[in-house]
């Protein structure tokens, strides 16, 4: 199976179609994976541009660049684009590229639906972004779109936002169904569930979260739609509804959603750390059970986002303790990664640098999350920059970090070429320093009481905001270098071998250096699966 030839060639009979229509009509999991990744990258740059606007306005106290209304549109769209346009599609892209190769399947189980679930995305993203040019401007009520801000007091463009969220939900659910079907039906016959690589496991569990959570979001926005246009009163107190009900429904989706964005990241890190520590993953089965435990717990902690809505003490205590419970399986994972590195023969290529900084920085985000989960302390922290710092540590230096790590780690397999290691290291240090300059001072701002989503602030916050903005511009600029490194790798990278990382395990490394257009037309043997298993 292992071929070390340096020339990549497409399958003789079913090569990709020529020209632009290849990308429109493709049903190939690798093509669709690439489309997802590029779409996510473009959305990352768009959402990043919004963030630059936000940081530019917050560079100094007072209003310099924009009206508060436009500032609110930027914060709202930054959140929506990053969550639904960048992070989620990037993980679906990784899943598309990697899962069939990792389970020894020729393609995804439902290739035509796969094409559709991708091609919904650019339209949904386009509709969402087009609201900027509508009368009344884009939605400006925050990415959490609490009623009645998003029902009674919202601009007309909100209906377009609702439609876009519906489309994004369709796309995610179809992607999740596809991944479940692939993992359960297309897996190599000789591969048992506990032979599966952790990225496959985490994505399988994430898919169930998606199928559970996204329809609830669809329900919430549908209620908004009928409240706005058809005279219902789900969230309107005058008609017997309740705005707080919106928060319950939203966070019943919203909390699983944050694990949708982090569980695949745990999978990625569980591949990279064993590779560069040259040791098997410590505690494979505990990793699987911890992932499942986190997924279950994510459904029963939602109201910790709502400690200030006036809950009985008993409910606050329950949600506080249930939230704290999540740190147990998460701690299992962090300690397993550290144990994997313990006494390993470590080297620090770019993917490993990203992975180790993930473990460190994600844990900081996890700890600030624990602080926020303490109900009495949350009265002080709620809706301050401390919350902003917290979720950027878990989503930027967590989810996004793992996506960048995965890109460097599997780029040789996707392109058959090696990226420029020196430049990648420069980029890493640039990004890891600037991201901390950007987000760490926001902890202090929040503890001192600076509220989030406000374009102006009082003078005592000026210094930390200046530091944060400088870090923000530096971090934003680092993506120019990232773009260059990736394109340079695709065009001019040195041809690589089938297994460019000597410690790497997994069926994908048994394919040609640039994975062939159709892989695993015959399923891998039991012997090969055992040799490449993480569970050994």
């Amino acid at each position, binding site marked *: 199976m292992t071929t070390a030839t340096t020339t990549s060639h497409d399958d003789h009979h079913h090569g990709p179609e020529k020209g632009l229509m290849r990308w429109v009509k493709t049903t190939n999991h690798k093509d669709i994976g690439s489309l997802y990744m590029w779409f996510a990258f473009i959305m990352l740059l768009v959402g990043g541009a919004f963030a630059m606007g936000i940081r530019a306005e917050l560079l100094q106290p007072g209003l310099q660049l924009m009206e508060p209304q436009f500032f609110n549109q930027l914060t709202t769209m930054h959140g929506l684009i990053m969550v639904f346009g960048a992070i989620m599609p990037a993980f679906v892209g990784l899943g598309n590229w990697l899962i069939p190769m990792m389970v020894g399947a020729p393609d995804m189980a439902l290739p035509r639906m796969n094409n559709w679930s991708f091609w919904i995305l650019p339209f949904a993203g386009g509709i969402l972004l087009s609201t900027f040019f509508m009368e009344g401007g884009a939605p400006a009520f925050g990415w959490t779109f609490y009623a009645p801000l998003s029902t009674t007091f919202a601009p007309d463009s909100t209906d377009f936002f609702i439609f876009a969220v519906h489309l994004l939900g369709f796309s995610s659910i179809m992607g999740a169904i596809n991944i479940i079907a692939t993992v359960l039906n297309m897996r190599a016959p000789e591969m048992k569930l506990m032979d599966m690589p952790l990225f496959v496991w985490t994505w399988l569990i994430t898919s169930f979260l998606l199928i559970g959570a996204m329809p*609830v979001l669809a329900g*919430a926005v549908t209620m908004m739609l009928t409240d706005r246009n058809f005279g219902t009163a789900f969230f309107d107190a005058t008609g017997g509804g*309740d705005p707080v009900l919106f928060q319950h429904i939203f966070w019943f989706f919203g909390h699983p959603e944050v694990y949708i964005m982090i569980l695949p990241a745990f999978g990625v890190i569980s591949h990279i750390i064993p590779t560069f520590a040259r040791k098997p993953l410590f505690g494979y089965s505990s990793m699987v059970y911890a992932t499942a435990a986190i997924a279950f717990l994510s459904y029963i902690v939602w109201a910790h986002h709502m400690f200030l809505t*006036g809950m009985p003490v008993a409910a606050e205590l329950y949600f506080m303790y249930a939230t704290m419970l999540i740190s147990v399986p998460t701690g299992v994972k962090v300690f397993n990664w550290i144990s994997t590195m313990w006494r390993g023969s470590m080297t620090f290529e770019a993917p490993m640098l990203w992975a180790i900084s993930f473990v460190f920085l994600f844990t900081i985000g996890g700890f600030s999350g624990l602080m926020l989960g303490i109900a009495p302390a949350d009265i002080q922290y709620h809706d301050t920059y401390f919350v902003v710092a917290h979720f950027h540590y878990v989503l930027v230096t967590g989810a996004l970090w793992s996506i960048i790590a995965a890109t460097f780690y599997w780029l040789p397999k996707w392109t058959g070429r090696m990226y420029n290691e020196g430049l990648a290291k420069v980029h890493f240090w640039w990004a890891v320093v600037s991201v901390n300059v950007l987000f760490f001072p926001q902890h202090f701002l929040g503890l001192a009481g600076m509220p989030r989503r406000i374009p102006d602030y009082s003078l005592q916050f000026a210094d930390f905001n200046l530091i944060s903005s400088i870090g923000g511009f530096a971090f934003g600029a680092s993506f120019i270098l990232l773009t260059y490194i990736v394109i340079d790798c695709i065009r001019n990278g040195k041809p690589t071998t089938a297994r460019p990382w000597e410690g790497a395990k997994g069926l994908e490394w048994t394919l040609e250096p640039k994975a062939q257009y159709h892989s695993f037309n015959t399923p891998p043997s039991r012997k090969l699966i055992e040799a490449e298993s993480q569970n050994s």
Partner: protein
Amino acid sequence: MFAFAYAMVPIYDVFCEITGFNGTTGRVDTEQQYTVDEQRKIEVSFFAMTMGGFPVQFGPKVRSMMVVPGKFYTASYIAKNNTGKTVIGQAIPSVAPTDAALHFKKLECFCFNRQAFKPHEEVEMTLRFVVEPELDKRIKDISLSYNFFKLDS
């Protein structure tokens, strides 16, 4: 799960009624008898708000009263319509702390129905309530607030 999102609407209503979650007050249908401890006193404070340019002046007649748990009391709010048009509104009640909401029961209340205010009319609106003796001993103060919303026509 889509249906579940809709199912959450009635589930939430029932849940709030049973637990007093979200400051939902309870109702009683008759002046039932409670065991009364005359020594125990609780201060009930009354608050009023209006929402979204509601053109009626609205406030409690007395700011607070001392009540004995288990006894029924009547309190009233004054509303004055300053406009030359009939205004229709609905009051939404809320009780804090939420742990007290479950034991704050109303026999009758102007918030049970929508209210019509004739032009330049001043009305006194009443509610009759009881604080049940089962209320947590640690709670000494209860706040009752009403928020008036304007209804179209």
